[in-house]
């Protein structure tokens, strides 16, 4: 029999409405309020061993302490599953359900599930950290909500893998994963094309992105002859032993190396570890990727003020947008704090 803990607010615990929203955290044995409907749906498959109750205001007044109390309680009782809510379209209650579920999943490794109206505020905040099933916007939909909570919750408690969100009847958690299908690609592609040709509805299997963020170009360098210029590359140019272990593709790391070291180019010499282009000509002469020779000549002529003491490198192939944005941000902050005025980024 699956042992379940259940989290609800003061209203569903029968303590009272808004006037009792400061009711403190407490733990009761067995099922309370909607927990009884959950037990009915469970039948002989499971039971609610304890109900955690907290007022909507008191939860958020000290969320950290209340979460610690939940963790301490479930750490002792070790349930197979935590169900929170359903909280429907409630703001504070929904956020409390999300926070409790996220903490219990992440810190105790216990599967968690809550039920929310898809547009409830807690959905965007916690969707990636706990399983959520969609409900109506009010407790009038309790019966249906309990059924889907129990059905999906029992799968989680029994250690079954998640299936695609629409197959499970869940709110999507914000990530994509491969799934096995028995409908061939060629058949799907042809059906989609013929529907499009007929003017019928069709559903793309990948949605196009929201409009990308526009990056305005920086202002022109006012005094080039006094500007310090840095070299940055995504061409994977690193010392030959790759001391910072920058990845050949799907990079998550960047590093900077002294240009004096690059100029010497022996012990260690530089090479490209980039897996997205044929690097033999760069290995033969790194100036082809990081044009230090040309920049030093311009500095000697007085065209630019000087070359920054370090060049920066990462690998730009298969890199995710998330890591790309983070690395760009980190490199830019370092360059600014070093007083660099402008950057030449060489790309493959």
């Amino acid at each position: 029999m699956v042992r379940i803990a259940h989290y609800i607010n003061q209203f569903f615990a029968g303590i009272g409405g808004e006037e009792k929203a400061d009711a403190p955290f407490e733990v009761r044995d067995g099922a309370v309020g909607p927990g009884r409907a959950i037990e009915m749906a469970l039948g002989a498959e499971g039971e609610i061993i304890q109900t955690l109750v907290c007022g909507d205001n008191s939860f958020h007044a000290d969320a950290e302490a209340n979460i610690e109390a939940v963790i301490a309680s479930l750490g002792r009782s070790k349930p197979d599953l935590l169900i929170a809510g359903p909280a429907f379209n409630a703001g504070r209650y929904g956020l409390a359900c999300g926070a409790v579920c996220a903490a219990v999943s992440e810190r105790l490794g216990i599967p968690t599930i809550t039920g929310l109206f898809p547009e409830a505020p807690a959905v965007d905040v916690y969707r990636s950290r706990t399983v959520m099933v969609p409900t109506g916007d009010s407790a009038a939909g309790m019966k249906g909500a309990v059924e889907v909570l129990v059905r999906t919750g029992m799968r989680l408690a029994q250690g079954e893998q998640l299936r695609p969100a629409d197959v499970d009847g869940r709110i999507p958690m914000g990530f994509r994963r491969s799934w096995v299908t028995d409908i061939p690609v060629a058949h799907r592609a042809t059906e989609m094309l013929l529907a499009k040709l007929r003017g019928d509805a069709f559903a793309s299997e990948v949605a196009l992105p929201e409009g990308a963020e526009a990056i305005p170009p920086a202002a022109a360098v006012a005094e080039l002859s006094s500007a310090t210029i840095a070299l940055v590359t995504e061409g994977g140019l690193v010392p030959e032993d790759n001391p910072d272990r920058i990845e050949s593709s799907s990079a998550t790391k960047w590093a900077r190396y002294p240009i004096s070291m690059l100029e010497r180019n022996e012990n260690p010499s530089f090479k490209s570890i980039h897996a997205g282009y044929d690097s033999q000509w760069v290995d033969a002469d790194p100036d082809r990727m990081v044009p230090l020779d040309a920049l030093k000549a311009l500095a000697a002529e007085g065209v630019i003020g000087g070359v920054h003491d370090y060049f920066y490198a990462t690998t730009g192939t298969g890199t995710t947008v998330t890591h790309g944005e983070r690395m760009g941000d980190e490199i830019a902050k370092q360059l600014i704090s070093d007083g660099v005025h402008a950057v030449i980024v060489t790309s493959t």
Partner: protein
Amino acid sequence: MRQPHSLTMHTIEIDGVVLGGDAGVSNGTLTVDVIAVTALVLEDPRIAGVEIEIARPGESTRIVHCLDAVEPRTKIGEGSVFPGFLGGMETVGQGETLRLAGVSVLVASRYPQPFSGLLQAREAVVDMSGDTAVYSPFSRVANVVLALTPNPDIENDDYDDAVRRASLRTAEYLAGTAADHEPDDTTVWDFSDQDPDLPKVVYFYQLQGQGRMADTFLYGHDIHNLVPTLIHPNEVLDGAIVSGVYVYACYKNPTYLHQNNPIIWELQARHGKDMNFAGVIINRGHNYTQADKERSSHWAAKLAEFIGADGAILTAEGGGNSAIDMMLACQYMEQAGIKTTVVSSEAAGADGYDFPLFYTVPEADAIVSIGSEDEVIAMPKVERVIGGDTLLDTETPAIGPFDLKMYFHYCGTNQLGANVLVGREF
């Protein structure tokens, strides 16, 4: 006189493969004469050794270092399969061809010299059973594996040619051992009748042509200078296109899947029923400059207009660079009034939270997913490994267990649609 657009394909269904001395097909079982195949492969002095093993669906067997796979085929009467490599230089797609269905000749090898940079043969793994079998379509056919040892004294480019000829010659030889066997099916493929009431669909068929280890061959010639070109579907199905793409395993299109291109099979099956199969536009993927990409993509869209296409299905081969070429072609076709669907793999990171496409155009509103190339798969211990003892690069024991990125699963996210994965919201 030969009918130029008609190909008669005889199919023998093979449901078992054994090694033995009495070559040929009997009751659906193909017997491979080990001595004869060994002698055939070792005629080439660039190959120092060959071990021949069979990997069957359902076995606890793993194949590593997969380079190319080829379906056994031979021409009946005039001509040769794979012209440009075998026989004279002529085109295919007409006459009669015999194929052994359910079998691949799969060549596995390391290269004699170390590689540097992008253009290197990378690890490519097939598991023949268990949960990990879904990561390669070659888990579903019987593979006659040629595990080759290179002559250590030759250069990689030379060995590359030897590998390709070994698999093509073996495939032709094996089909030849069944030449007097009664086929299970004979189908005439002919698309010359076009129904004016049905929409005309063209197939935009991108081939990777990036350099040695990432090359595709059209009638024996690399495609570096190929401009988008019309080719008859029968030519593709009859061996005009041979793969030499040995880079990332998840998205390479081996010769076997050119011979059995799932998009072409589908369009052929539906020709005259709910659409007309109007033709195939082959084109080079991985054009190096933006100007070359636009030139190639505009050219492909123009050809589709020339033949009066109403719709197009587009496939790519390779990663982000190739995706740009395909997406631009999608854009230009849509702008010319040709409706499109695009087949694409997904790259949303190992955890799946990033945006899944490399490059998009607003016109690409009908995308078919072939799954994530970024996931990491837990590979179990298996009973038998063919092709090598350790994985390339990491030298991890190939028997397992180990974690393996999708990149290294042989045709795991095959862009011609040969595998069973689809990316879904979780």
